[in-house]
């Protein structure tokens, strides 16, 4: 394929929307030079094609990936779409074109640049998701737990199931500041994602303050003075996670 290349695609930023871009690319026999979400779009000299999200088209593409390639390839595409890889739409498209040509082995060809960048991005996301399973901190507002995170990758869909399992008997909320995405779980078992630019949390009560203080005491005491190693600490726990972690917060008195 690859007939016309001087065109820019714009879509609604959703995964389904992206799949429709893939669909268009086949239908129109063109290879766009950029694929951008509407809200992130910049001025361009190239002609623009606005791609509407048609669920039926998205479905068709979604079904074709595991069929023509493998379930693993589909999983990779979905994961990378959540990642913060630059120009991810373009890179995913390139991989998909390769995959339609080569079939199931495409995803395993990790020594190829096209495949390698995707695996790298997926790993970056998986690592960040894993870190946040531990670094995320809840505050208890009288029987309601709430946490804020600001990850680089859109990890909330990846980590939410872990917290649902672990805190099944709790009402809790996690809000991703970067992606303005929230997740709410009720002890009845209901849960949902929601979009919000801002959330308001109440003031912590005395019990909550007391446990924060106990945790900070534990954190300070557990370190061995003779073995201080700030560099190692930063390697394992990058500083960008610190502001949302209780052990690095000071209560205003």
């Amino acid at each position, binding site marked *: 394929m690859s007939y016309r290349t001087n065109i820019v695609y714009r879509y609604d930023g959703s995964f389904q929307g992206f799949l429709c871009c893939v669909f268009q690319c086949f239908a129109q026999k063109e290879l766009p030079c950029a694929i951008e979400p509407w809200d992130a779009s910049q001025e361009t000299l190239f002609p623009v094609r606005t791609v509407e999200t048609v669920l039926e088209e998205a479905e068709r593409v979604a079904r074709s990936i595991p069929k023509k390639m493998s379930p693993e390839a589909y999983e990779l595409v979905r994961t990378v779409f959540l990642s913060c890889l630059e120009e991810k739409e373009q890179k995913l498209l390139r991989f998909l074109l390769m995959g339609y040509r080569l079939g199931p082995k495409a995803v395993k060809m*990790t*020594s190829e640049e096209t495949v390698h960048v995707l695996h790298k991005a997926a790993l970056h996301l998986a690592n960040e998701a894993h870190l946040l399973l531990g*670094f995320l901190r809840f505050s208890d507002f009288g029987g309601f737990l709430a946490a804020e995170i600001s990850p680089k990758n859109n990890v909330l869909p990846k980590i939410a199931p872990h917290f649902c399992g672990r805190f*099944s008997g*709790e009402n809790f909320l996690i809000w991703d500041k970067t992606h303005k995405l929230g997740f709410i779980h009720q002890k009845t078992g209901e849960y949902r994602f929601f979009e919000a630019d801002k959330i308001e949390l109440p003031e912590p009560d005395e019990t909550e303050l007391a446990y924060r203080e106990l945790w900070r*005491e*534990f954190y300070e005491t557990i370190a061995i003075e003779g073995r201080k190693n700030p560099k190692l600490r930063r390697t394992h726990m990058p500083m960008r996670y610190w502001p949302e972690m209780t052990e690095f917060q000071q209560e205003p008195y």
Partner: protein
Amino acid sequence: MELLKKLEILTDAAKYDVACTSSGVDRAGEPGKLGSAVAAGICHSFSADGRCISLLKVLMSNACVYNCAYCVNRRENEGRRASFTPEELCSLTMNFYRRNYIEGLFLSSAVVKSPDHTCGLMLRALQKLREDEGFRGYIHVKAIPGADPVLVERLGLYADRMSVNIELPSQKSLGLLAPEKTKETILAPMGQICQGIQENASDLARYKKAPRFVPAGQSTQMIVGASPETDRQILLLTEGLYRRYRLKRVFFSAYMPVVNHRNLPAKDTPPPLLREHRLYQADWLLRFYGFQAKEILEEEQPDFNPLLDPKCNWAVNHMEHFPVEVNRAPYEMLLRVPGIGVKSAQRIVQARRYTALDQMALKRLGVVLKRARFFLTCKGKSLSPLQTDNPLVIAGAIGEGRVFQQGLSGGEQLSLFAPQKEDKVKCLTGQI
């Protein structure tokens, strides 16, 4: 005494314990109950010394009736004493866990009154957590040497992992430094736990509902540098413990002088961090790379090379096995190449099925070419920029000269503790 104060004292007394991983068992959450466990382990924070914090690591009490020379809690040492009540410990664990501060509890204790009394206190705490509160998070508990086997058995039914500290690498050192403990009182519970785990496995095969006994297995730790054993002796002992007692992990702790004693290194001796680091590297080779202790350290050279990690050291001394061809060498041999780890060896084996690998490809697969190139050929071509017939030249090229100097000036950069390394690698490869 105020809870905050107790927590400070009993954390301070527990902090030298190195084994703080939450790994080895997968347990899904249960509707309405608090907690789950993840086999790969999860680090919740890292302390100022760079170690992973995963569990609430505290002592039940530090009021010890024993008098081990190397320990701050010894009877004759002056200092603040405190004990948690089982209730306090239980609510602390629950409240930390709900806020996602921790993965669970790591409970150890000094010997209060007697081993049985101590074990009883710990048992009450765990019972409250598991039975009254329905807690499903991770629990690691230390068995107290000399306690009644019945109590040890019951602790094991609540815990995910148990450990008994072997303390020192030989019976002689034990007699000298920990007079109230004997090899027998330490090995007896270790044997009991090992046997319990095996019997449990066969019970579980027969009845699915049999209660689980120590599902994440058993570990131990020993102090390095308080007594005169060689690295080879320590490594052989480690290998023996893995085999005989099927331990999941052996941890090493560089001795940090806390007291003056005629049988111990002087109080200003720096802890042997490089040695500890090398032991962990060698331990890694035993567990994941198919090495044997006697290969890693030979009789004529019973201590580690400060300039080369144990794998490089072995390779340089066995150049007759190299170079190996990346596109053909068996997996086991790839593992022996410096600069190729478990993950990159697996990736090589997978990727070479589809394309012949060249130098660029190796880089993408995560091979550290800086070291590996001296030991590899790619499509028949050597990657080495140097003649490989002189081991000393290769040793010079891949040695850790720079790191070693840092080691001499403070040793800070070397304190790579193993626990979080285990967790890190495992979450990437799903090992164990």
